[in-house]
């Protein structure tokens, strides 16, 4: 089916800004396949149902809108105190000098471009594969574009319990950088890995992570998207979970002109667990979109979605979350909550929770709320001597607590709480309750 003219034009304009695909080998084949698929679907448009609340124009454009990098002052870089394997990307390009040696017990890591030269590679069955599967029932063209044109990325094979977390650090320097990163993570049966990500990466970032979580394996993911105000990002996390495996993913987003974080999770083996959580805080020009699609395809799996947003001075929050329970997925336990705390009347929260259930022995609950700070609670705290600003911060943190509790590591959770406190202290003076 031919694309509508507008979509065709948008795609041509975007492709004109990207290098032509060439080369041979498994990666080139995956890229070529992705380009063919992209040409059939076109780029997302504001009129697409899935992009109703978030305008994709700036993500589609041939060139990124310039974005200054942000100096966080004396705030310590995240995860600095942890023993970790650090991999640094500057404006979307791997920086070997700043990175650690790409090996640790239980983990093998390769740069995408190096792996491309191999005749046979384990990532052959993963790169673009989960992304392709994730195109149904909803199309995600920006992920397909990523598969075709990714400029860098790492392939992580976890064969046992990883000796330390892998930490991807995304530094943003250039005002016009446009990064397309694609990572693959494969966890063998019983393996486990904590993947940390932090930083804005570029003026514009398009990032895909595909994760294959083997039976009894466990994947923990904690992401901080930096503090840049002007950056734009679209990210996709595609994951397939085997029997009794676990995935936990938490994202902290503070600032950012535009963020669209998609998670597409497939529970394919029985007794698997997926927990997705996000805390987003925005002041002013901030548009943050969490779009989650969880498919229960096997018995007795559990999924949780906990997304909280604090919005002020015209910030916009979006949540689109879906739980699809297939007929085979009896004994499913699904939970979804999306909430916003709006600190003034100019901010906006748009939520679209969806449940689609074909099994009959299922427990699924969902809720979505938006509201202001509880004046009564605020007065109660003040009447006990807590100054108004501190009382507000305490209540905002309490609101975010359920999301932060999803972080399995207490030390990291506490660090994130402290960062949020700092953010609230810096932005709280504008709060009109």
């Amino acid at each position: 089916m031919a694309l509508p003219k507008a979509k065709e034009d948008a795609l041509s304009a975007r492709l004109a800004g990207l290098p032509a695909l060439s080369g041979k080998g498994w990666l080139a084949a995956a890229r070529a396949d992705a380009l063919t698929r992209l040409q059939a679907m076109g780029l997302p448009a504001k009129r697409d149902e899935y992009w109703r609340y978030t305008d994709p124009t700036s993500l589609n454009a041939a060139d990124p809108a310039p974005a200054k990098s942000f100096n966080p002052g004396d705030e310590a870089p995240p995860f600095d105190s942890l023993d970790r394997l650090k991999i640094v990307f500057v404006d979307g390009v791997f920086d070997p000098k700043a990175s650690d040696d790409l090996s640790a017990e239980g983990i093998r890591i390769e740069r995408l471009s190096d792996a491309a030269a191999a005749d046979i590679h384990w990532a052959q069955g993963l790169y673009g594969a989960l992304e392709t599967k994730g195109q149904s029932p909803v199309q995600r063209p920006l992920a397909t574009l990523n598969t075709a044109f990714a400029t860098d990325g790492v392939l992580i094979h976890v064969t046992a319990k990883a000796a330390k977390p892998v930490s991807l650090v995304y530094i943003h320097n250039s005002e016009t950088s446009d990064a397309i990163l694609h990572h693959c993570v494969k966890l063998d049966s019983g393996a486990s890995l904590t993947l940390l990500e932090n930083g804005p990466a570029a003026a514009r970032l398009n990032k895909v992570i595909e994760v294959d979580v083997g039976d009894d394996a466990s994947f923990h993911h904690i992401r901080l998207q930096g503090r840049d105000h002007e950056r734009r990002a679209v990210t996709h996390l595609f994951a397939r979970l085997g029997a009794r495996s676990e995935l936990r993913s938490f994202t902290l987003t503070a600032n950012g002109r535009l963020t669209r974080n998609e998670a597409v999770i497939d529970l394919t083996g029985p007794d698997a667990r997926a927990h997705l959580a996000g805390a987003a805080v925005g002041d002013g020009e901030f548009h943050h979109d969490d779009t989650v699609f969880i498919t229960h395809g096997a018995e007795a799996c559990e999924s949780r979605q906990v997304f909280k947003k604090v919005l002020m001075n015209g910030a916009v929050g979006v949540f689109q979350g879906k739980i699809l329970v297939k007929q085979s997925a009896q004994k499913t336990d699904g939970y979804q909550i999306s909430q916003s705390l709006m600190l003034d009347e100019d901010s906006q929260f748009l939520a679209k929770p969806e449940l689609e259930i074909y099994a009959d022995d299922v427990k699924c609950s969902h809720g979505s709320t938006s509201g202001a700070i509880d004046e009564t609670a605020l007065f109660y705290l003040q009447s006990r001597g807590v100054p108004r600003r501190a009382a507000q911060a305490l209540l905002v943190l309490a609101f975010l607590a359920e999301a932060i509790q999803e972080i399995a590591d207490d030390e990291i959770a506490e660090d994130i709480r402290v960062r949020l406190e700092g953010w609230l202290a810096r932005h709280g003076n504008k709060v009109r309750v």
Partner: protein
Amino acid sequence: MLEIKNLHVKLEEEDKVILRGVDLKIGAGEVHAIMGPNGSGKSTLSYVLSGRDGYEVTAGSATLDGAELLEMEPEARAAAGLFLAFQYPVEIPGVGNMTFLRTAVNAQKKARGEPEVTAADFLKLVREKAKTLKIDAEMLKRPVNVGFSGGEKKRNEILQMAMLEPRMCILDETDSGLDVDAMKLVADGVNALRSEGRSFLVITHYQRLLDHIKPDVVHIMAAGRIIKTGGPELALEVENNGYADILNEVG
């Protein structure tokens, strides 16, 4: 200690006058009770003194040891030594009771320029005071008042009072929703705090609470004014005859 003069208060958002010239003077170490029919303005008085939004003071003053309360933020009134035990203690999901108590104690200390309490000292003190109020460790860990029974909430108010050591305590219908045993427990908690330097204003509908917390002075409030003041026997008179006689008598 507390001196209220000619206090007039209306609701901020509508033209409804609630207090029409309240005069009240409570000396150090005294326990005063205010009784009165529904809608007489008792709770409004407690809210206005503690600084809740939504009320407009149109005339009068309220001073604590000479300092004008009505111009202070609620937190400053607390730091100055005022405490209100709420009729309906507020639930705060996500904030642990212990964190709440410690934040409050240290915020007041900071405001007064005193050193903060260390975590260890604080813990010891809370446990000690909680024990006498039969508040278990579990209740201290839970979010503030969330899932607490009526009695637990009121005991938690008294625990806060014990920890914050205010000079002027206002108890707004602390007996409401309590069974006899729970009321006794709360009253014992209050009595344990009675001292020469600490005064109480006990707002209640019923004489029953005053059997346990013995007042020095009893005031009857009606239609936004204190219409009669007497000793403890006044409370008994209300208990036996209701408010009608007193209201008629005053005219």
